[in-house]
């Protein structure tokens, strides 16, 4: 992996922030976009922008086939059985809501839903809404100090009332890689269906959905070097067929009269309205880009960054890392004794370093540690050890200012 060459693909990385080089360590919030993806968007709007699927004309045909090609790419990349099991969404949050809302017609009073303590709000709130609507019960897999889920406790939560389990593959606040294969297997013993939130895992290592045997899977392109406003939902065909459509509109119907409307087949049933066509096409370019580098290469390099940064950060006096799971991705949440994360983040920003501070949309994790929030640095394959060294310098400078 030639990092210097890779960095040149990302125009934003040459930005200066108040005289300093931009150091972008907020990759868990959104990834940066290579020129190949930006160019694909321009190409779309300059050459074959058109509404898809229903058009007889040339542009519409080109746009449709580019769009459908991406469905195929996603199928291959994530090892999905059938193309029609890939539903385009506007992102992870949309995908989770689509499934949660679909089960509001299926779940019965007293049924149980399991979620983990490590989730992003997007994987909590829709389930709270579902539980309220159906009078089902939301149960929480507890976590421990290292940031791992308590699998023993999970197994005890499962029973024949458990209908759904929603868990993220990787925690966005701590970086923990959850043992989802085992989680799925256990759930299936009780015939519960499992949704995996892949927002934080898809960017960092290869996901094989057939091997995992997940029932549903969601992720967002904007964390995968792709554009905003697009993601996809995978669902097993039989399960998706059981769910009612989420939104009504064009594209998702086969016949409309005021007396009776019949719905189209998968995937269209869940893709109402004009989709984010340029987003889908650019998402395809992003996958091509990542595969051009190689997800294994990315994983190895990011692991190296994680190890290096962890070691360096631990040398900083008073610094405590939250989340030290054995299996984790290149996300480090930390605080420094008696310094508010927001203060530290502000000073780092002034030195050109973009980090995130606060609760990271994961208030239950913060509540668990009884902290108001953390500073989170998250690395991507275009980051370098040199940038990490500068981070350490900057942190030490900030500590001086803030004490």
């Amino acid at each position, binding site marked *: 992996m030639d990092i210097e060459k890779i960095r040149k693909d990302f125009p934003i990385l040459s930005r200066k922030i108040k005289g300093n080089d931009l150091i972008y360590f907020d990759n868990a919030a959104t990834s940066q976009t290579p020129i190949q993806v930006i160019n694909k968007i321009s190409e779309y709007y300059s050459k074959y922008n058109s509404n898809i699927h229903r058009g007889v004309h040339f542009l519409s045909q080109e746009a449709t086939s580019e769009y459908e090609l991406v469905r195929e790419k996603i199928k291959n990349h994530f090892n999905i059985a059938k193309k029609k099991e890939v539903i385009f969404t506007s992102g992870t949050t949309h995908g989770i809501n689509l499934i949660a809302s679909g089960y509001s017609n299926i779940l019965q009073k007293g049924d149980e839903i399991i979620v983990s303590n490590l989730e992003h709000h997007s994987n909590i709130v829709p389930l709270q809404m579902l539980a309220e609507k159906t009078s089902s019960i939301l149960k929480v897999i507890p976590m421990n100090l290292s940031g791992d889920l308590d699998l023993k406790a999970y197994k005890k939560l499962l029973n024949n009332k458990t209908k759904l389990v929603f868990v993220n593959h990787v925690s966005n606040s701590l970086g923990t890689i959850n043992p989802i294969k085992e989680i799925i297997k256990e759930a299936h013993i009780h015939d519960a269906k499992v949704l995996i939130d892949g927002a934080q895992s898809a960017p960092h290592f290869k996901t094989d959905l057939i091997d995992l045997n997940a029932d549903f899977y969601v992720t967002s392109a904007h964390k995968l070097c792709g554009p905003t406003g697009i993601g996809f939902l995978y669902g097993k065909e039989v399960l998706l067929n059981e769910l009612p459509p989420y939104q009504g509109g064009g594209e998702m119907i086969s016949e409309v009269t005021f007396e009776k409307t019949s719905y189209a087949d998968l995937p269209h049933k869940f893709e109402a309205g004009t989709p984010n066509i340029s987003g889908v096409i650019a998402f395809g370019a992003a996958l091509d880009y990542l595969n051009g580098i190689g997800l294994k290469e990315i994983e190895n390099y990011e692991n190296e960054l994680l190890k290096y940064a962890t070691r360096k950060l631990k040398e900083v006096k008073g610094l405590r890392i939250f989340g030290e799971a054995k299996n984790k991705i290149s996300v480090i949440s930390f605080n420094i004794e008696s310094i*508010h994360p927001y203060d530290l983040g502000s000073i780092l920003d002034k030195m050109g370093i973009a980090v995130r501070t606060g609760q990271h949309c994961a208030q239950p994790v913060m509540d668990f540690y009884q902290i*108001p929030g953390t500073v989170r640095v998250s690395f991507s394959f275009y980051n370098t050890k040199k940038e990490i060294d500068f981070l350490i310098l900057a942190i030490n400078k900030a500590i001086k200012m803030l004490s």
Partner: protein
Amino acid sequence: MNSISKIQKELVEEFSFFEDWMQRYEHMIDLGKSLPLIKEKYKTDDNIIKGCQSKVWMHAELEETKLIFTADSDAIITKGIIAILIRVFSKQHPDEILNADTKFIDQIGLKEHLSPTRANGLVSMIKQIKMYALAYKTQIN
């Protein structure tokens, strides 16, 4: 020139001495250390100002015709911001507080150096100060 405008002018001059944001931040942090602290008993949820990643508690009480503000925050930069506001608005008559403009904030360059969340917090703090002024104004009359 009334007292509020004078203090504002002083502040603008004070900050203009510093050449870069780093020094300005350091100065702000220093000011934060001299913030007139709110009494623990007033550090209630009712007195929290929303709109910040950090928490801000503020309390006001009347001493004759002047309003006295005390405050605290869990973040030190936020303390600096509120210290600046208190220096301007504390020990002033409610009417003067209500009439005061807040151009000095832009003149100091505070807003452009603060994150929008913090800038929002700043706006909330000023709102809160003016609310107190409004509430106590009726007590005086």
